[in-house]
C-alpha cells in the first residue's frame, strides 16, 4: 500500500509531462500549430464545445448508442466465447469462421447495416455490436483457457451447476484477463459507433467529429478526440477500480 502514493504521483507526472510536451511542441512551432493546436487551446475549445447544447445532445446520443451496443455485445459475445472455449465441437465448427470474420475490416459492412436498419439508433447500435462481438468472443475464449482444471474439478465434485461454475469459478479465476478484454471491447465498441456516425447520421458526436475533420478545424477535432478518449478512459478507470477490488488476493 505504501507504493500507491508514489505510483499515483508518477502517473500524474507522466500525464503532466505529456501535456507539457504537447504545449511546448505547438507553442514553439516545432510542430505547426495549425496541425497541432496547443493543449491549452484544445482544452479551452473543449470547454466551449461542452457548453453547447448541440454537443451535449450529441454526446448523450453517442453514449446511449455505445451503452446499448456494449450491453448487448458483451453478454452475447461472452456466452459464445465460453462455448467456443469449453465445447470442442462448437470450437471446431466456429473458431476459424469467427476468426475470419474478425479479420475483415468491419466498415465494409456499414452499408449492410443501413440496408437492414436504416439510418438511426438501431443501425449505430447494430454496427457497434458487430464491431465488438468478435473481440469479446476471442477474449473470452482466452480468458476461459486460463482457468485451472483443478479448480473446475473441485467445483464439479461439489455438484456445481453450470451457472454456479460460471459465476463462482470461471468468473473470479479469469477476472484479470476478462477485465482486460472488457477494456479493449469498450474501445472497439466506441470506435465502431463513431465510425457508423461518421458514415451516415443525423446526430451523435461522430457526426460532429467528421465535420470538424473535413473542415480542417483542428482545435475542434482534437477537442472531439479528447472527448471520446475521455469517455473511454473513464470506463477504463471504472474497470480498473473493479479490478483493484476483486484481485487483491493475487500476490
Amino acid at each position, binding site marked *: 500500500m505504501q507504493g500507491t502514493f508514489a505510483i499515483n504521483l508518477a502517473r500524474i507526472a507522466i500525464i503532466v509531462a505529456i501535456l507539457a510536451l504537447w504545449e511546448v511542441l505547438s507553442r514553439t512551432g516545432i510542430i505547426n500549430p495549425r496541425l497541432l493546436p496547443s493543449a491549452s487551446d484544445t482544452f479551452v475549445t473543449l470547454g466551449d464545445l461542452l457548453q453547447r447544447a448541440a454537443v451535449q445532445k450529441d454526446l448523450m446520443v453517442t453514449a446511449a448508442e455505445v451503452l446499448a451496443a456494449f450491453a448487448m455485445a458483451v453478454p452475447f459475445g461472452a456466452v459464445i466465447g465460453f462455448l467456443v472455449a469449453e465445447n470442442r465441437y462448437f470450437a471446431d465448427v466456429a473458431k476459424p469462421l469467427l476468426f475470419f470474420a474478425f479479420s475483415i475490416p468491419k466498415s465494409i459492412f456499414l452499408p449492410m447495416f443501413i440496408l437492414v436498419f436504416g439510418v438511426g439508433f438501431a443501425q449505430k447500435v447494430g454496427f457497434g455490436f458487430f464491431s465488438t462481438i468478435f473481440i469479446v468472443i476471442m477474449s473470452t475464449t482466452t480468458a476461459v483457457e486460463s482457468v485451472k482444471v483443478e479448480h473446475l474439478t473441485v467445483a464439479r465434485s461439489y455438484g456445481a451447476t453450470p451457472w454456479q461454475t460460471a459465476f463462482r469459478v470461471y468468473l473470479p479465476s479469469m477476472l484479470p484477463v476478462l477485465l482486460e478484454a472488457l477494456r479493449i471491447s469498450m474501445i472497439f465498441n466506441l470506435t465502431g459507433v463513431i465510425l457508423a456516425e461518421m458514415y451516415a447520421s443525423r446526430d451523435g458526436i461522430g457526426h460532429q467529429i*467528421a*465535420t470538424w475533420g473535413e*473542415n480542417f478545424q483542428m482545435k475542434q477535432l482534437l477537442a472531439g478526440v479528447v472527448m471520446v478518449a475521455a469517455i473511454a478512459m473513464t470506463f477504463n478507470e471504472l474497470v480498473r477500480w473493479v479490478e483493484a477490488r476483486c484481485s487483491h488476493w493475487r500476490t
Partner: protein
Amino acid sequence: DTIRVGLPTKTYWPTTVAETAVRQKLFEKEGIQAELTIYRSGAETFEGMAAGAADIILDPPSLVSAGRKKGVMSRIVANAAMGNFGWQLMVPTKSTLDVKDLNGKKVAITAAGSGSDLLALWTIQDKKIDFTRVPVGGGGLVPNLLAGNVEAAVVYSPLSFQISKSGEAKTILDYASAVPPNLTAGWIVLDKFADAKPQLVQKAVNALYGAVGFMRANRDVTVKLIAELYEMPPEIAALEYDNTIMMLETSGDMGAAGVNAAVQLSLDLAKLGGLKDILPVEDVISTKFKPVPTQQ
C-alpha cells in the same frame, strides 16, 4: 408525409439548401416533413438511398449511371449545379509552382474516384501534364498540403476559401471557371419512389428550389446560417455565399435546353476516373419533375 433527404457531407452547399428549406418551413408549406441525414461522401449517400434510408439525395450523374448497372434504378430529377463552385487547385502560399509545374509532382485528392479525383484527372488531360494523385481523405487535404507531403491539393469549398483567406494557401486553378459547364450535381430519387410518390418528390424539389430562391434573396440570413452550420467566421461564409450559393441552378428543370449535353459532359469526365459503363443520358435523367419554387 416525410421525405428523407440524404446529403453528402455537412459542409457542402446542399446542406445549406436543405437546412434553409427546413428553417424557412418550406417543406411544411408544401405540406410535408423533411428528415435530413448527412453521409460521409457522395458514394455513401448513394448507398444510403439504395438501402432505402434516403428518398432524395444530391449526387453527380456518374453515380446514377454506375448505380443502374448495379441494379439501383434511380434518376436525376432536378439540376442543382452546373459547375464545380468553390473547387480549387491550391498550393501553399509560399510555393511558386504553377499548374504546368505540377508535372511529375504529387497532388492530393480526397479519394480515388471522387469528385476531386475527377477534377485532378481533368487537369492532367486538359493541361497535358502528368502528376500523381494521392488520396488523403477530406481531413488529410490541408494537413498534407501544409506539411509538404504533396505539392498541391484539389480543395473543396468552403475549406478552399478558408485557407486562402487565412493565407496558408493560394489558388492556382479555379475549377468553377476552368471546367466547361457540366451537370456536376443533381437531386436524385429512385425510380420506384418517383413512381410511387410523385407528389412527394415534386413537393420536395419545390421546397428545395424555394430555398435556393430564398437564399439568393436573403444574403444576411443565409450568410449567418452558413457561418453557424459550418462553424466558420462570417467572412468565409460570405465568400461561400457569393461563390457557390449564388451560382446554383435556380430552376432545376431537367428538360431545359443544354441539360442533356451538360449531363453527357459530366459522364464523359467520369469516364476519366475509371467509370466503365456509361449509360445514355436519357437513362440517367428524368424530366417528369419541374420544380416550382415554394414561395416564402
